């Protein structure tokens, strides 16, 4: 087990997992001396009937202060401030967030405002600006991907000032994460695929990056193993409760891993592709993951190769000669993408040129790649990537990922 010269690991989130985990919420709230939660969610989640399931599970024991189900896809400071007013107007004393990354970020932002009585959220954006515990926050993820339930970051946009405020504090870690199979049971296969590969990318990049550490590593290995042994089963049988719960756990484990070990070039390019062309995050991750591994392989093949055990099983690992294992890892992830492509009738794209929108139009035109590479220069995740990456490197990776051909490792500078 690799022990770095120095590392830090922290995941202060209580995890409650099960097919009836929601029913544990009242007890959890009571332990935190809370009785009147504000439920924060979005329209998609509430229209899918998930909020009703949560309410049914807690109604008898908890008096819900209010339910705000209008968090937009692209949340902002305005939304945070409005929900903080809802919290105050209804005398709430805690928050339950039901949803994906955007809902959780919004809930964390609301929690800062109501706990610190902040009029200007910006005042709390610096590192170390939060000094004490916030109000109790229970999060219920409805996708198995972002891992936000285990991260200490919240990003809130201020559209008026054109700012993206990042809040980083251990006090932003939710108090409790509820992983209940009912919350992801109806997730469409295409989204199940993308979100699971998002979690996969978190785990893989955490394991192979510069800030890897033993606890992130063990979490990442478990996450990868759970995804590779459950994802295809869930794709074939979406109502597989055990498989759904396993994927939810994988996302949380991967979240804990990357929250402590950060991510690398896959995320750098993924964020940039998302912001320039609007490609869903999970799909970017799935497409770019093999390329990121290839790009860094000359630096970290000895870590990458170890991932063959959770990905393909100990048998495949033992049967593969040592010098081919890292490449086998990449091949295996490509194969997963192909299988997901087949299982979604082509909706799960295998390369950037293949990404289509609802109307069948190409989402990433080749001529946008320069813009994406330019945007990638502004993304901090590259700090944690093993190899240096400049504009030309970004562009080289993007071009091959657009074509869908394996990376010509001879083109990497310094190899």
């Amino acid at each position, binding site marked *: 087990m690799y022990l770095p010269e120095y590392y830090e690991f922290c995941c202060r989130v209580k995890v409650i997992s099960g097919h009836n985990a929601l029913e544990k919420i009242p007890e959890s709230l009571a332990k935190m001396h809370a009785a009147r939660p504000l439920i924060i969610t979005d329209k998609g989640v509430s229209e899918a009937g998930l909020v009703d399931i949560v309410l049914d599970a807690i109604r008898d024991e908890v008096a819900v202060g209010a339910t705000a189900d209008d968090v937009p896809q692209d949340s902002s400071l305005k939304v945070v401030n409005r929900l903080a007013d809802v919290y105050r107007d209804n005398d709430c004393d805690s928050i339950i967030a039901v949803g994906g990354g955007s809902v959780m970020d919004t809930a964390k932002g609301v929690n800062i405002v109501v706990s610190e009585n902040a009029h200007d959220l910006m005042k709390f954006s610096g590192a170390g600006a939060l000094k004490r515990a916030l109000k109790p926050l229970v999060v219920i993820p409805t996708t198995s991907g972002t891992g936000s339930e285990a991260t200490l970051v919240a990003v809130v946009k201020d559209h008026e000032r054109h700012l993206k405020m990042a809040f980083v504090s251990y006090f932003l870690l939710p108090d409790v994460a509820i992983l209940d199979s009912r919350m992801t049971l109806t997730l469409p296969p295409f989204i199940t695929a993308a979100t699971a590969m998002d979690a996969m990318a978190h785990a893989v990049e955490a394991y192979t990056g510069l800030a890897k550490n033993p606890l992130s590593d063990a979490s990442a290995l478990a996450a990868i193993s759970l995804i590779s042994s459950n994802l295809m089963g869930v794709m074939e049988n979406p109502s597989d409760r055990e498989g759904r719960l396993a994927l939810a756990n994988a996302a949380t484990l991967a979240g804990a891993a990357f929250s402590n070990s950060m991510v690398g070039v896959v995320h750098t390019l993924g964020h940039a592709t998302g912001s320039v062309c609007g490609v869903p995050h999970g799909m970017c991750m799935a497409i770019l993951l093999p390329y990121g591994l290839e790009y860094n392989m000359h630096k970290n093949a000895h870590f990458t190769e170890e991932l063959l055990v959770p990905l393909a099983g100990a048998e495949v690992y033992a049967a593969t000669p040592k010098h081919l294992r890292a490449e086998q890892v990449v091949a295996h992830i490509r194969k997963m993408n192909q299988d997901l492509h087949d299982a979604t009738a082509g909706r799960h794209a295998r390369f950037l040129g293949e990404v289509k929108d609802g109307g069948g139009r190409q989402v990433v035109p080749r001529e946008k790649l320069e813009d994406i590479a330019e945007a990638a220069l*502004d993304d901090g995740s590259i700090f944690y990537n093993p190899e240096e990456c400049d504009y030309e490197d970004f562009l080289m990776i993007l071009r091959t990922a657009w074509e869908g051909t394996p990376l010509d490792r001879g083109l990497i500078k310094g190899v």
Partner: protein
Amino acid sequence: MNEFREVTPGGKPFKKAYVALMLWFVGRAIQAAAKVDGDVKKEFEKLPEGFTFCLGVMPHGPYMIVGKDRKERVKYMGWRREGRSIDLDMKIKNIEAAILMFTFQEGTAVATARDRMVVDGEVPYACAIVRVLDIGEVYLLPKIIARLAVKRYPVWSFGRKYIGRVRIYFRSIVGY
């Protein structure tokens, strides 16, 4: 009980002096590199007018402040941060962590990966400044040390590497 006592630990003046000297030199070298090196110049051109950044050690310094003045010139602005509005604040968590960095036992990337620093400010600024610091290290340090400090030692032309290095050293010492 006699086993109880209170202690006020002292300072680390020599280590602080060393780090202060290094910061002073790095600050003046950045000012010089912004004139001499095309890439550094470009990085600063993209930053907003009046942009100021501070690199220093918690909790009480030393610090180094570099910024763009009104005429868009990149200037080393000294070691006092009081009264300045700082756009990008890079703080090394303690003096020992600073020593690890400034004795080149830990490069910028490794120090970041090991949580040795906290960074306040917009991420794109931080990305730009880290690239500037990396270029600065390649100029200032002999290859054998700089290779440990940066992820990939760049391939530069003879002119950029050697003539550039002499010009930056000269300007840093003379201070223009």
